């Protein structure tokens, strides 16, 4: 096989397209991530407000009292809480008092879960992340040109911007990159008010690490699926190539061999026994070559017939020429000259007969098929030439209602004329040729009967063969033997039939059956 065929490539493309469904999932995860971050921030603000409201009830903000509150909160929240006084000092910090490391911006502990993953999957993730980063980097170019990464500017005089904002009575927020990690820490600061006056600020912060690590796991999983799918796609493509492309290639090769081959074409092509479309194609090719074979056989037998028919008059002419050369008798010479002239005329008739055969074959398909009233046609043709001279009577029996068939009028006339003139020429002088038209529901039948010598039973079928002319006397030589062959060809092209039989006690009967117009 020549590498990947074009169909193979297309199959691979389709299969890869399927792979892109999980890729779309990864892209969607990006949106999902930003939603989650928003929700996380909203949660932090909520926690900060609740804490601020609680602290607002107190007269003073005291570190130890707040630490107790933190201790209770710690168990329910991953967030880190810090309380600042109006001077910007930290009064309480939940991280300092808890023994266990809180989920904080500096928290490194949870990343240990990453160690469980094998180097291979991390490599996979890095590969995927690298691709995603490249995409982000490209997509974020306009953003980076416009705005800085963090939502608040750098610290002002040691005081974080969000704290300063909260102490000024506004909501403060900041997002800072967690050092050494891809995660960020979200800061939300709200002022603590007591009867309208600001008494301090509550800052709640939480790392997005947990969120990101969950997403990391999902992404890794999806990426594994993508990689697996690509492998699957490659396998499927290879499978499709072997089940579809290879049989097709085999068929093509066989078809090409046929084109360059001599003699009979193969009737069976590779894959003909398959039950799929390729099997259909192979069978169709087989059918095509069978028909071509039939046609070739027909041509061969036809050309054998033609050469045989041409050789007979040629042999006659040769014999006459030889005899004339050898003969001393002027009478004999004259006689053979006459025979030679007659043979040349016969050769001429034969050649025009052959031209007619070719013409009929070529023209039947182009004839205009129209409704033809068979009775009317018979009335015209019953007046056969030569009948009256030999006092032959032609009788015509027609049904009361017209019988119509679909045919080319001239062609049908040719058929009937041929049969009728055969009957007339074989009739004894003073004989009767009877033509009868009958019809049943579906068929029209034209029967032509004569009182001639009839046809030997072994020749009843052969009279329709090309070049077969059965005539009991020497008149055979005047007939090429193509008329009935052409007639049969025409009648069969209209879905009809023509057959010969003998009458008792004597005479021949030809019956033409044609389907009636429905």
């Amino acid at each position, binding site marked *: 096989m020549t590498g990947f065929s074009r169909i193979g490539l297309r199959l691979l493309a389709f299969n890869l397209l399927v792979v892109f469904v999980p890729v779309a999932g990864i892209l969607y995860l990006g949106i999902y991530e930003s939603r989650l971050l928003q929700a996380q921030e909203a949660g932090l603000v909520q926690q900060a407000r609740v804490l601020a409201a609680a602290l607002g009830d107190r007269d003073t903000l005291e570190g130890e009292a707040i630490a107790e509150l933190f201790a209770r909160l710690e168990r329910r929240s991953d967030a880190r809480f810090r309380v600042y006084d109006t001077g910007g000092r930290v009064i309480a910090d939940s991280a300092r008092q808890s023994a266990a490391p809180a989920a904080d911006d500096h928290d490194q502990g949870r990343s240990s879960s990453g160690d469980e993953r094998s180097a291979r999957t991390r490599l996979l993730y890095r590969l995927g992340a690298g691709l995603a980063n490249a995409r982000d980097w490209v997509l974020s170019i306009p953003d980076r040109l416009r705005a800085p990464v963090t939502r608040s500017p750098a610290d002002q005089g040691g005081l974080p911007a969000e704290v300063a904002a909260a102490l000024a009575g506004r909501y403060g927020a900041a997002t800072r990159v967690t050092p050494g990690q891809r995660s960020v820490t979200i800061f939300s600061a709200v002022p603590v008010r007591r009867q309208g006056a600001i008494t301090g600020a509550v800052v709640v912060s939480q790392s997005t690490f947990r969120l990101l690590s969950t997403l990391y796991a999902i992404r890794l999983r999806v990426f594994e699926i993508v990689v697996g799918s690509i492998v699957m796609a490659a396998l499927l493509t290879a499978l499709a190539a072997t089940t579809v492309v290879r049989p097709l290639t085999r068929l093509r090769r066989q078809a090409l061999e046929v084109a360059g081959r001599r003699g009979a074409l193969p009737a069976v092509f590779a894959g003909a026994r398959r039950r799929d479309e390729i099997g259909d194609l192979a069978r169709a090719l087989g059918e095509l070559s069978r028909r071509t074979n039939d046609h070739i056989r027909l041509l061969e037998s036809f050309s*054998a017939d033609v*050469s*045989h028919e041409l*050789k*007979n008059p*040629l*042999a*006659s*002419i*040769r*014999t*006459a020429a*030889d*005899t004339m050369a*050898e*003969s001393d008798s002027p009478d*004999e010479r004259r*006689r*053979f000259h006459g*025979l*030679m002239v*007659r*043979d040349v005329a016969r050769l001429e008739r034969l050649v025009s007969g052959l031209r007619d055969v070719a013409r009929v074959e070529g023209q039947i398909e182009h004839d205009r098929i129209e409704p033809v009233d068979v009775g009317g046609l018979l009335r015209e043709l019953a007046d056969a030439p030569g009948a009256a001279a030999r006092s032959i009577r032609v009788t015509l029996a027609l049904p009361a209602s017209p019988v119509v068939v679909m045919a080319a009028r001239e062609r049908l006339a040719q058929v009937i004329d041929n049969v009728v003139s055969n009957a007339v020429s074989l009739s004894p002088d003073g004989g009767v040729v009877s033509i009868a038209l009958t019809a049943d529901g579906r068929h029209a039948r034209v029967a032509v009967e004569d009182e001639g010598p009839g046809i*030997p039973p072994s020749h009843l079928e052969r009279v329709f063969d090309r070049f077969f002319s*059965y*005539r*009991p006397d*020497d008149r*055979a*030589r005047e007939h090429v033997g193509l008329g009935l062959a052409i007639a049969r060809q025409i009648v069969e092209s209209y879905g009809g039939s023509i057959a010969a039989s003998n009458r008792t006690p004597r005479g021949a009967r030809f019956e033409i059956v044609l389907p009636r117009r429905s």
Partner: protein
Amino acid sequence: MSERAKRIAVVEDEETIREGICAALRRDSHDPQTYGDGQAAWEAMQGTLPDLAILDIGLPRMDGLELCRRLRARSDRLPIIFVTSREEEFDRVLGLEIGADDYLCKPFSMRELMARVKILLRRAAQIAEPADAEPIQAIGDLRLDPVRLAATWKGTGVPLTVTEFLLLQALVRRPGAVLTRDQLMDGAYPDRTHVSDRTIDSHVKRIRRKFASVDPAFAAIEGVYGAGYRYAGEA
């Protein structure tokens, strides 16, 4: 040899050919009887058989093959020559099934036909009155009697047509030498009538078959690819 004019039946539906053969036979002092169809000929031959029959294959009422079969059933010795335009009938006509003695393809030369008639009549006369005057050619297991046109292999007679005999004789005359198809044609067809290369191959094939039916191990006639044939039997 009797000087009585030989009665020769000509069964041919082509008037010109029939009359032409008839005129040529008369010139050679034969007594031709002509028939336009097989049935008429068969009926006319009910009484006495002719000395030789020239038949066409395609005949009205009874074809030449059937007529030949019937004549063979009555006599093994009657020489029968076919003249026809169907080369593909060749093998059948000369084979055991029909058993004709010779065959000419139309169009044929009248002199060729007359040469065949002469050879066949002479053979028939020799069979009737054996006169062992001419030498018999013997090469290994093969013996050729040029007078009676008879061949034997290891003492068993092999029925050959005139053409087959002449062809074999041409090969045997120069044992071991390769003869081209042209040379063989010259040997088998003294008048070089219309014969194709394929005809020679067909004759050789039939000669081999006839000898093989007597001796399945017969392999004395060798084909030399691209050249012709050679008689390889040891002297």
